[in-house]
């Protein structure tokens, strides 16, 4: 998805103004001429300047360009769906891994991704399970990362 530079510029300009407003509330340090707000403030000013230039540049190209160009992959349902599934899998892991545990989440995420990318059906579950167990062994046993057990807590090893 490609936004016209004017839109990106406006968003960035808003961001830099927000930063400038935030740094204004930062206190000065007594006896020093430069406080914690100085450096981010300077950066925000530069960002605002760049945003304005970007807006101007965007307005120039606007003549031959839509505001938002939907890229080829977003028009293809297969690719758009897979994009959403990937983002969904990561979000699912963030919210569910504590409760379900790594092993269950890992197998689920891999299976869904394999299915989305059209791996042959009979291979999906076996590969998902083997890979999850291998990764678990490397990180949990080998590197001592406390991956959550979740629901499988009673049978942990």
């Amino acid at each position, binding site marked *: *998805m*490609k*936004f016209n530079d004017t839109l*990106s510029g406006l968003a*960035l300009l808003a961001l830099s103004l927000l*930063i400038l407003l*935030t740094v204004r509330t930062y*206190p000065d*340090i007594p006896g*020093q*001429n*430069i*406080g*914690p707000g*100085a*450096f*981010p403030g300077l*950066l*925000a000013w*530069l*960002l605002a300047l*760049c*945003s304005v230039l*970007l807006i101007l*540049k965007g307005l*120039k*190209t606007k003549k*031959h*360009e839509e505001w938002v160009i939907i*890229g080829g*992959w977003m028009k*293809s349902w297969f*690719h*758009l769906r*897979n*994009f959403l599934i*990937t*983002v969904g*899998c*990561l*979000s699912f*892991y*963030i919210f569910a*891994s504590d409760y379900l545990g790594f092993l269950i989440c*890992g197998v689920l*995420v*891999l299976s869904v*991704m*394999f299915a989305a*990318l059209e*791996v042959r059906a009979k*291979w999906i579950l076996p*590969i998902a399970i083997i890979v*999850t167990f291998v*990764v678990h062994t490397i*990180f949990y046993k080998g*590197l001592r*990362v*406390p*991956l959550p057990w979740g629901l499988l807590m009673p049978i942990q090893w």
Partner: protein
Amino acid sequence: MTTAVLLQAFWLVFDPYVLLVILCSAMFGLFVGCIPGLSATMATALLVPITFFMPPVPAIAAIVTATAMAIFSGDIPGALLRIPGTPASAAYTDEAYQMTLKGQAEIALGAGLVFSAIGGLFGTIVMVLFSPGLAEIALKFSSFEYFWLVVLGLAGAVFIGNTSVLKACISLLLGLLIACIGLENPAGMLRFTFGMKELMSGVELIPMMVGMFAVSELLRYITNLDPPPMIATEKIGNIFAGMWGLLKKYPWALFRGSVLGTIIGIQPGSGADMASWLSYAMSKKFSKEPEKFGTGHVEGIVESGAANNSSLAGAWIPAIVFGIPGDSITAIAIGVLYLKNMNPGPMIFINNPENIYAIFLVFILANIIMVPLGWLTVKIATKILRVQRNILMPIILLFCIVGSFSINNSVWGVFLILFFGVVSFIFEENGFPVAPAILGVVLGTMMEENFVTSMIKSDGDPLVFFTRPIAMWLAISTIIILLWPVGTWAYDRIKNGPAPEPSQ
């Protein structure tokens, strides 16, 4: 004293554990580089969570080895499929593919391998010879010089080799602003944390890099509409045949490529990609038979194959001497050095010289074992290229999840890879380069510290930034880089009349 240090470094490197790490990361790098869509930077980003658990020397050894291997092995799919495995091979992919079509795949790959190794060794020698001396000069630097060095590095990242300087600038500023998040600033004040305790110590570098360089590349693979092409050849013969002849025929091309690559590597902000493009162009210019370029002629591969590997070592010179990365790979490596309490900078040559010599040794070792391992990879390349990418990609995703979780043992890391993965995917779709942002994040704290210290020292008078002799020279070079694009634009304008309307 030096021999004692060398001996110590020798023991550090020739330890069975370190050697095993080097071997494994070499195979990992060769594999990742060989698969189109997985770059050397991604190899580094995927390795970093694992190096998190290692002592400093094997951690750095893993990164150095994996990247050197990945840059060579990017040549393999270039020659066989006409898609570069890593961007650094893109300059001569067409040439190598043409050679394969002519039945000369062996020569293309052999030249890529042998001259990559020689270029890498050349860059390493330059690094060994020059960095201790540079470190001695760097010891005299104060906050003013360091401020300018950082600005010089960042200016290089923005103004060299980006199609849109403005967008690179924005990307850099966003990176610098991300570095402002948290407590880590001269005033020790909480900034931009939005009340989240996870943000108090700033945004963790490793999950951010995994998101920017691994998750976003996964998303790009998943949304890629082009089906993978067919392999051009099945048989690959002896890749070392005829290499001695090439060495005798093109010694100058090899030397030019290595020198140019090393220099481009040292220049902060430009790395292997640019080294190979520029030296390919230079090779054509100086060649006795430029008309053969593009039709399957090996000369350009000799020169730019050497250049992209020598630039890797070159990029480490500013990284270890000043703590200023030369490209996104060394930016990641510097992040690792900081995590290991091995802060780069001139003091490291005094406090831990054995670690520095160990890094030198690893470079030499990596470039030597590249030859047999690379040969092996080429042998099995047609099989590696058939690895089902729809199985590989989800597995990489799972590695990203676990790797980012393991940094703090919390899903906050997973959230960060999701956030930075999606953001950099959208950024790249809109033509904003990501590399300047990561340099900004890595250098932001250092830049602010030196800026604030200098301002306090000078009582708020910015002119002091120009009065010390070295600072003045650094300032002048920075300003030249800053004005360079304006100058070339004006020159074009005068020479060719007004610029045509942009046609995008």
